[in-house]
């Protein structure tokens, strides 16, 4: 394949991936058994890939019907120029959500799962809507020495 046509195909493929999912990423995650009593509850994000080496924060928010999203926490990702614009696979990210989740205990009631929205944002917490990313696994787990 010639260089120009190769580049064209790469750009088309990249354009497809940018718009592969519309809107923010939402995930239904199970609430760990006994989470209300746990000393720590962590949001674990595994297999995250992001296009390019830009720095950003991944902000997690709880989505509860009829209410504003509640920020659970975020993880800051330092940029890495060495990857250029290539996909960048990130290590497992851990976000401690113990306190914000605890404040939702009454509203979550006896639910066994909840909806979490993940948004990449910049240093001023402005959404990075055009940043393309994906994650293989999102879950809540109890932490500590329990």
């Amino acid at each position, binding site marked *: 394949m010639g*260089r120009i046509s*190769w*580049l064209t195909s*790469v*750009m088309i*493929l990249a*354009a*497809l*991936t*940018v718009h*592969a999912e519309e809107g923010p990423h939402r995930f239904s995650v199970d609430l760990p058994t006994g989470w209300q*009593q746990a*000393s*720590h509850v*962590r949001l674990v994000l595994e*297999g995250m*890939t992001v*296009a*390019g*080496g*830009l*720095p950003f*924060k991944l*902000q997690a928010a709880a989505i509860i019907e009829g209410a504003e999203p509640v920020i659970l*926490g*975020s*993880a*800051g*990702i*330092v*940029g*890495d*120029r*060495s990857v*250029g*614009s*290539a*996909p960048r696979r990130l*290590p*497992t*990210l*851990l*976000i*401690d959500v*113990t*306190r914000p989740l605890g404040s939702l205990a009454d509203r979550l009631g006896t639910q066994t799962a909840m909806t979490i929205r993940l948004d990449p944002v*910049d*240093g*001023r*917490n402005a959404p990075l809507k*055009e*940043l*393309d990313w*994906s994650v*293989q696994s999102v879950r809540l787990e*109890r*932490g*500590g*020495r*329990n």
Partner: protein
Amino acid sequence: MSNLDDRMRAIMPSRRSFLHRIGLSVGALGAGLFGGLTLPESVLAVCEPPGNPGTAKPWRKDCRMILPRRPASTLSASEITQLKDAYKAMRALDTSAPNDPRGFLRQANVHCWYCGEGTQVHFTWQFFVWHRAYLYFHERILGKLIGDMNFRLPYWDWDTPSHRKLPGAYTDPNDNSNPLWNGSRVMDPTDEIPEEDVGEDVMEAALTADTFTEFGGTASGSGIPEGTPHGAVHVDVGGDMGFFDSAGKDPVFYAHHANVDKMWSDWNKASSIHTNPTATAFLNLTWNFYDENKVWRSIKASQVLTHDTQLRYTYGPSKFLEQLPCLLDWFPIKTDWRISQTLKFAGQTRAKMMKVVEQGGRARLHLNELAVPTDKSAVYRLYATPEAAKADEGPGSKGYLGTVPVVLNDRERRHLSKNARNIAVRLSTAKLEALSGTVGPVRLALVERGVKPEARKVIPVRAKDVSLSLAEVEREER
């Protein structure tokens, strides 16, 4: 979830090599492919290795006075002048002696070099310890350049709500006449680090992480605070600070990381169970840095674990340590272990302990003068029953109570320490349930971790005494 991963994996190798061939700029391609998201204007940093100066001389001992690192926002005028003079001298070397490893850009590139493929010190348990060593030599060089080895780096205490702006010294004046200034920052002098990046939720989560695995990571994974607050502050400041290869080019990087280092120090102080790894693989981690005399030095993780005595600096009090659950005095609960060598745990004691823990208090199980095998270095798991020990399903499983590490002093398997082994295990509600869920007296047992089921030997706990303790949490009157 999208299937982006697979598609990206498919195109990644050839695309990267293609870019090299045609020489497209990273920023231009980023703009083209990803809707205008571009890297900052600065070109790819020159990420130089620290050189190849031969065999490094081992770092021995620091005999300077033990002095405090202080919050950057509370430095006196003379301290700010000293700090600026130090960085001014370091920056001057960039032009007067570009090959001097103590120059500012050479210093910044140390971070760049150690954060690349193959030498990446982030995302593992190297994170805290490597940055401590890096800042230590950086601090010594700054001190040497101003002729004052009592100089100590300041820390940017962004965890203090009133100190969330960039420290004044780094922005006043906010131009290149200030050696602490960096023109690439996205964060303005009037901006503040957002609460959710460095606030109480974040700090308490970090400082109450129960194990170093959770706090500082493992050989293959990172701990919680590396993402937030650490990474979040990098992103918030932005510009050079936002990237591994250039972060060291912003002088506020060193103040930021001094506070990250303080957080590690505070975590160690927050609880007797907050201990650093004792694995040889961790203790023997070794890196090389130039010292203040341009001598190429090697330093081990084990040489930086206690910053006050080994590296000669301290930190001030932690506001967040003061805000952690305020426990009332520990209340010892005796058992009849000395008589029966078993633990009876039921009735009122159990109910009381459960109630206190559910209300945010703390409970502990103490094993005093515990006998453990000393024929090898090993980790033993403590279980509430011999059956649970035999099953050895590890942390989180029913009956699991904690670990008892046994580290011998050297490869000759000598165990020089004659001190009694006293173990304290924090009891969660799950562990309390495990202790009370047995029929009859509790028969504590140990089992060596990592042994195949067929070779597993359950060791009944032998200890001079076993007791409990309880601390209620102070609650405000309502």
